[in-house]
C-alpha cells in the first residue's frame, strides 16, 4: 500500500541552541494511506500542532523525514512549494485568516497561488463552497460580514479549493456550539465520501473521533503513545486516563452498567451506538 504522508523518525526542537530548547515532538513514525481518516488525540501541549505543521513543510524537522507520495518534501524548493497544495492544512480558528474583499475571492486565494486558469479557479471555488456548506449568496459578501460559523466554513472552503490529496484539520470544532459541532463533523464525513481524499483530524473530543476515524494516534509528551483502530485504543481506558485523556462518557456509562451486572457490550463509543443498544435492551425487558 502506498502512503500519502509518511513521517520517519521525525523530531522537532523549538529554540534550538538556547537555554529554552524543548523537543516538541520526538522520533515519530506516522503514516496515512490514501483515503484514510486518521485521528490524532493528545493532551494540551503534547505536540499535535507541531507534528501536523511538518506535513506541508511549515516546520522543518530537526531530524527525520517527511515523505509526501514517496518524495521527501525538503528535497528542493519546488517540491516544498508543491507539498502545500498536496497537503491542505486548516489551522485552529481558521476564520482569522480571511482577508479578501469577497468570500469568493478569499476561497480563490489558494487556487490562484497554484496558477490555475480563471475557469478552473471558478469551478473549484464553487465546488469547495458546496463541500464546505458556504451559501451561494454569501460568495459575493465580505467575509467580515459573516457570522462566526459561516466564516469558519468559508475558511475551510479556502483550503478545500486547493483540492489536496490530504486535508488536515486542527481542532476544527473548537469554539462551536453542539449543533455547529455536529454539522461540521457531517461536513467532514460528506467531504470524504464525495472526494475520497485522506483526512487527518486533531481533536480533543474522544466521541467525535470514535464516530469518524479509521485509525487513531495518541500523542503524549511529544511521542506517539498509542496507535490503532478506535477499538484498540479506546479499550485501554486506564492508559488513556494516565495521559490526561478520557474515554467517551457513554463508554463510562456502559462500563458502570456492566459493573452492575447488566449484559451490555464494552465497546460502545458513540451516543448513537449506545441508544441503539439500550433500545434493544429495553425492548427485551418489556416483552
Amino acid at each position: 500500500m502506498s502512503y500519502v504522508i509518511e513521517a520517519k523518525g521525525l523530531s522537532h526542537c523549538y529554540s534550538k541552541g538556547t537555554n529554552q530548547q524543548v523537543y516538541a515532538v520526538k522520533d515519530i513514525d506516522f503514516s496515512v494511506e490514501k483515503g484514510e481518516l486518521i485521528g490524532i488525540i493528545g493532551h494540551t501541549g503534547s505536540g499535535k500542532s507541531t507534528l501536523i505543521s511538518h506535513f506541508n513543510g511549515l516546520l522543518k524537522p530537526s531530524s527525520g523525514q517527511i515523505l509526501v507520495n514517496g518524495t521527501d518534501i525538503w528535497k528542493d524548493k519546488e517540491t516544498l512549494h508543491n507539498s502545500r497544495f498536496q497537503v491542505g492544512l486548516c489551522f485552529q480558528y481558521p476564520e482569522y485568516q480571511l482577508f479578501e474583499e469577497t468570500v469568493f475571492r478569499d476561497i480563490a486565494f489558494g487556487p490562484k497561488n497554484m496558477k490555475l486558469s480563471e475557469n478552473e479557479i471558478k469551478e473549484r471555488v464553487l465546488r469547495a463552497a458546496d463541500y464546505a456548506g458556504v451559501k451561494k449568496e454569501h460568495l459575493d459578501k465580505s467575509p467580515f460580514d459573516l457570522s462566526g460559523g459561516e466564516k469558519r466554513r468559508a475558511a475551510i472552503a479556502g483550503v478545500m479549493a486547493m483540492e489536496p490529496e490530504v486535508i488536515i484539520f486542527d481542532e476544527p470544532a473548537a469554539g462551536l456550539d453542539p449543533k455547529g459541532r455536529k454539522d461540521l463533523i457531517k461536513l467532514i464525513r460528506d467531504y470524504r465520501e464525495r472526494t475520497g481524499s485522506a483526512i487527518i483530524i486533531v481533536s480533543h473530543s474522544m466521541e467525535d473521533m470514535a464516530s469518524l476515524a479509521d485509525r487513531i494516534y495518541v500523542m503524549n509528551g511529544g511521542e506517539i503513545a498509542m496507535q490503532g483502530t478506535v477499538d484498540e485504543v479506546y479499550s485501554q481506558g486506564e492508559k488513556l486516563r494516565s495521559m490526561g485523556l478520557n474515554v467517551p462518557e457513554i463508554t463510562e456509562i456502559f462500563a458502570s452498567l456492566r459493573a452492575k451486572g447488566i449484559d451490555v457490550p464494552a465497546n460502545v463509543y458513540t451516543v448513537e451506538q449506545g441508544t441503539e443498544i439500550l433500545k434493544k435492551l429495553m425492548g427485551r425487558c418489556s416483552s
Partner: protein
Amino acid sequence: MIGEITFGQYYPGSSVLHRADPRIKLITSFWLIVVIFVCKNFFSLGIIALTAIITSLVSRVPMKMILKSLKPIVIILIFTAILNIFYTQGGATYWEWWKIKVTEKGVNTAIFTMIRIISLVVISSILTYTTTPTALTDGLERVLSPLKVFKIKVHTLAMMMTLALRFIPTLIREIERIMNAQKARGADLETGGILQRAKALVPIFIPLMVSSFRRAYELALAMTCRCYTGGEGRTRMKQMKVSFRDIVLILYCTAATAGIIILNIFFEAVI
C-alpha cells in the same frame, strides 16, 4: 528573527538594581546619560565607562546579554567613527593622501563618540534589563506627573505605553500564526520583486489589522467592565517606596558626576 531583538527586554533577576525603585532608576539613568555629554576629556570619559561597567556587573545581567544589546548599533558606531575621522580636522596629522587627512583631533573625536554611544546604550539597556515594562511605565508616569500642570495626560500616555509593550509579544505570535495559515494556502512570501513582495503582505496585514482591532475593542470593553475611567483617583497595587538602596544609587551617581566635573576642570578638554 523577531525574537532575537534584546534591546528593551527585561532580564529576570534579583540584584540590587532589579529591586531598586523604578522612579529612581529612571532618574539616575537619565542623569548618567546627560553626564555622558558633559565629559570633556578622556579622564572624565573613563569614569563614565567605569560607571557603566560597574553598573552592569552589579545588575548581574550576563555580559553576553549586554553585548547583544550593542549588536543593532554596530553599523551606526562604525559609520559615525568613519565620519568623525575624516571630517574633524585639527592637531597633528597622522596620515595624509591626496585630499584625505587623518588628524589627531579626528581620531580623538571618533574614539570619544564611540565610547559615548556605547555607554549610552549600555546604561539604558541596564535600565530595561532590570526593570519590567510595567514597572518602567509606572515609574515614568510618576516621574512625569508634574507635567499634569501643563494639562498633559500623563496617566493616559503611560497606560498606552504599558498596553503597547504588553501586546508586542502577542502580535508577534499572531503574525506567525497568520503567516503560517497563508503559507498553507500556497502564499509565496519569499520570492519576487519589491512590488510583488509588498503585495504578498496584504493577506497577512489585513487579518492582523482585523484581529488587532478586535483585541483592542475587547480590551477596552474588559477595562470598562472593571470600571476603568482613567487616572483620576486610581490607587496602586504596588506602592513605590524609596529605600536605602535607592539613596545609595543616588549617591553613586553623585560621586560619578563629581568625579567627572573635577576631572573636566583639572585636565585639558579634547573635544
